[in-house]
């Protein structure tokens, strides 16, 4: 009981601690590929600290919702991240929520963020919010579709059981799983507001989505939101890891050494994915807002196709 609790706690702390690092790594990779030295991978931590130290400058007609939202967003994302088996399956609280719940939690975070964007009543806040929900209205179904895909293959929506199933049973190379992987990658890009869907670095009004919503935020509130974004990125990375490359995940109740090994492997996965993401972001340009639906629609279709294949292939 106690060690299990410890593991769960360790996981929560680890994701929290590593999230900024991952962001930093991605930025570093991009800088390197651009022949820049770039900021240190620890820069995000510094940013966060500075933000936390600053006062909050609040717009006059901002309501309480505007001030509560950052914590809510952060909390939802964090809980979601805590439910993903990053380095160990069978976490003690994993049964509180399955993959669908995680999706929904992220949806909740987005809900709060979009509302916060509209609260001050500026044109940019509304713009960001409306684009965000438009993207989400396709990204979420796509996510759910690939969740269905995986869940049907594994016969469960429970992440631990899925990972366990992938490890133990000979799943083999399934078309639908490949489709699901592609879909997940697209969704991940969209959800984290990376190129080509959105550009986290831009402040060019017409192209920004996520940044537009958080335009009015400052100080600790902004820090919370930044941290939540970083957590989200980490979450998706670990999700890809544990769904499609589950090797090296520690089972419940292995010895500490096993856990350490698992953590190491997890870090390796994260690094690889970060590198891939960086290269991807550099290799393509951001697309117009109204081309995004086609992009995500493709993901949705991939997911649906995968599920259909599974339904048809089962039991005949």
């Amino acid at each position, binding site marked *: 009981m106690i060690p299990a609790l410890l593991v769960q706690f360790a996981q929560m702390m680890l994701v929290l601690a590593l999230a900024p690092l991952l962001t930093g790594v991605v930025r570093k990779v991009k800088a390197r590929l651009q022949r820049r030295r770039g900021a240190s991978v620890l820069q995000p931590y510094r940013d966060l600290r500075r933000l*936390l*130290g600053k*006062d909050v*400058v*609040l*717009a*006059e*007609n901002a*309501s309480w*919702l505007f001030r509560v939202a950052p*914590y*809510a967003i*952060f909390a939802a994302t964090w*809980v979601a991240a*805590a439910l993903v088996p990053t380095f160990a399956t069978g976490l003690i609280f994993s*049964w*509180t929520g399955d993959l*669908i*719940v995680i999706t*929904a*939690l992220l*949806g909740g975070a987005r*809900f709060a963020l*979009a*509302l916060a964007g*509209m*609260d*001050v*009543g*500026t*044109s940019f*806040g*509304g713009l960001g*919010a*409306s*684009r965000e*929900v*438009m993207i*989400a*209205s*396709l990204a979420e*179904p796509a996510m*759910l*579709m690939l969740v*269905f895909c995986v*869940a*049907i293959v594994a016969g469960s*929506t*429970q992440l631990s*059981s899925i990972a366990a199933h992938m490890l133990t049973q000979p799943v083999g190379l399934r078309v639908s799983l490949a489709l699901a992987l592609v879909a997940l990658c697209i969704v991940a890009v969209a959800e984290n507001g990376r190129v080509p869907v959105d550009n986290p670095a831009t402040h060019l009004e017409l192209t920004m989505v996520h940044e537009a919503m958080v335009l*009015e935020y400052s*100080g*600790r509130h902004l*820090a*919370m939101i930044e941290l939540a974004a970083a957590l989200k990125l980490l979450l998706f990375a670990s999700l890809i890891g544990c769904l499609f490359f589950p090797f090296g995940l520690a089972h419940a109740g292995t010895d500490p050494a096993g856990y350490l090994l698992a953590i190491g492997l997890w870090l390796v996965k994260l690094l690889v994915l970060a590198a891939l993401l960086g290269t991807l972001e550099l290799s393509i340009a951001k697309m117009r807002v109204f081309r995004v639906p086609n992009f995500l629609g493709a993901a949705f279709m991939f*997911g649906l196709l995968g*599920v*259909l294949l599974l*339904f048809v292939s089962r039991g*005949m």
Partner: protein
Amino acid sequence: MTLVWTALAALGVLAVLGVPLARRATGRWVVYGGSLLACLVLLWAGLAALDAPPETLVLPVGLPWTGAHLRLDALSGAFLVLIGVGGAGASLFAIGYGRHEHAPARVLPFYPAFLAGMALVVLADDAFTFLFAWELMSLASWALVMADHAPDATARAGFVYLVMATFSGLALLLAFGLLAGAQGGYVFAQMRAAHPAPWIAGLAFALALVGTGAKAGLVPLQVWLPLAHPAAPSHVSALMSGVMTKVAVYGFLRIVFDLLGAPLWWQAVLVLLLGGITAVYGVLQAVMQRDLKRLLACSTIENIGIVFVAIGLAMAFRANGIAAGAALALTAALFHCLNHTLFKSLLFQVSGAVLVATGTRDLERLGGLIHRLPVTAVAALVGCAAIAALPPLNGFASEWLIFQAVLLRPDLPQWGLKLMLPVDGALLALAAALAAACFVRAYGIVFLGRPRSEAAAAAHEVDRISRAAMLVFAALCALAGLFPGLVVDALAPVVQPFAGGRMPVQGGEDWLTLVPVDAARGTYNGLLVGVFILASAALTAAVVHRLGSRALRRAPAWDCGFPDPRPDTQYSGDSFAQPLRRVFGTLAFHAQERVDMPRPGDMRAAVIEKSARDPVWDLLYAPVGTLVARVSDAMNVLQFLTIRRYLGFVFAMLIVLLLALTVMQ
């Protein structure tokens, strides 16, 4: 049973009392207070009936030589609970809200009658009583829709509504005619006993689907719903959307699962198809609405679609003898009915509060109400989050169960189902996401931002009772989301006889975790998720405030450096919906935009014109209307013939009949 009976009688008396009392201010208190009590009684009786043997009662009224048969079994009990909850909430809200009605005489007499009609539908145990109550419900609600009868929109709404209601009644009449057979076995018991031939059963099923679907708002029979629900006073809209549609669902369940016996797989395919389409269609319309109550009505269509998808799943599993799946899906359907009753009642009450505070339902004239109506804003936020299916609220719990049901058995034998299930899963996912978008828009435009009109700027919080009603329902939404296991257990006896099984007992699970089939397949614990979110949020806030700065300055909005004081620079409802319009509306509704941008130097304002058509209306209803108009125009000549021509008719008739005689002999 006697309890229910007294409650119904009380409602009847109230309906009569409503006429004289309408003039006095106390009338509101008497009628709504009385209805409140009656609804609580119904609620209590329904709860008691959930796990009690069926009670029956035969009254010497109604159809002679059959009498009125009433029966209170678990299913009726479950829906009686819905009626009780929704009715009680609406009545409570109305005690406060009713103060603002300009013509109480047009509402007070019909309101209790409406409630009584719905309760009677659920209790009826023979075809005559059922239809009697069914039509009574329609008639009373029609009168309530016509309460504010001045605008033409209301006239149209009332017309379309009552015609569709009668259409549904007639369809059910035919269905019962089939089931009753030639010697008129109108009592449900006889119908259960009689095992009709397959084609009769199929036809009866189709008629039942049409009849109940038309009342529930199933596409393509939903056209009346976005017209009628907004037209009524808000507490009545709450009843119509939150409760009456569920009564229609009850009718469907009663006929298909109870009277017809085991459903067939092709019927399941049909229901799944319609349900999925309805869900997406409804939410797409909701996203584009500009009238707050209309938006809510459209989202009712969506939720009805979700419920029917769940029912379809239950039918599919039942047809293949998969008891666990059927139980899961049916429970989910009933659970979602309850949830929808809760949050839709809440949201319509909110719309009523907004209407009272600002005098408008037009999104483009609202905004910033979170400052003026703090309590309403909180309740509304809970409602929006719940209907957007966000954990840990109740909407998510039921939709999660439905998703679990979809994922349960990919190996159904029939191809129709093989293809239908995943597609429905996708449609549900799409609907859920769009619903979230829709209610972000609704809440953001109405309550957040800056007021878009003086009325909105000068709004005042509504009275205490209305606020209490809204808060109670918000609390109920939260509770149902945090402890879904209890609801599931309560529904088990309802599901048992029709699904041939039940979901695993949830009471035993630690922390009241929700277990659809078994723990390995997936579990969800609303309570813990809620606690975790709260805890981590509070923790973080505390830590941040301790470690980081807690200072806070107010300043003008930044807005990328060029803030504009005028509120109309902020995003409007239409501009918010524009991306979704473009993405989905172009396909579904031929939505089009025409921008008229004046040349530089030209001083006139730029204009953007939007247009959207409703394919269902264009393809289904408009043709029928024009056909009737054409034919009646053509036949109208017959009103103006000369007597000689009329004599000609008589003569021709005579000759024809005589010829017929000679031919026959």
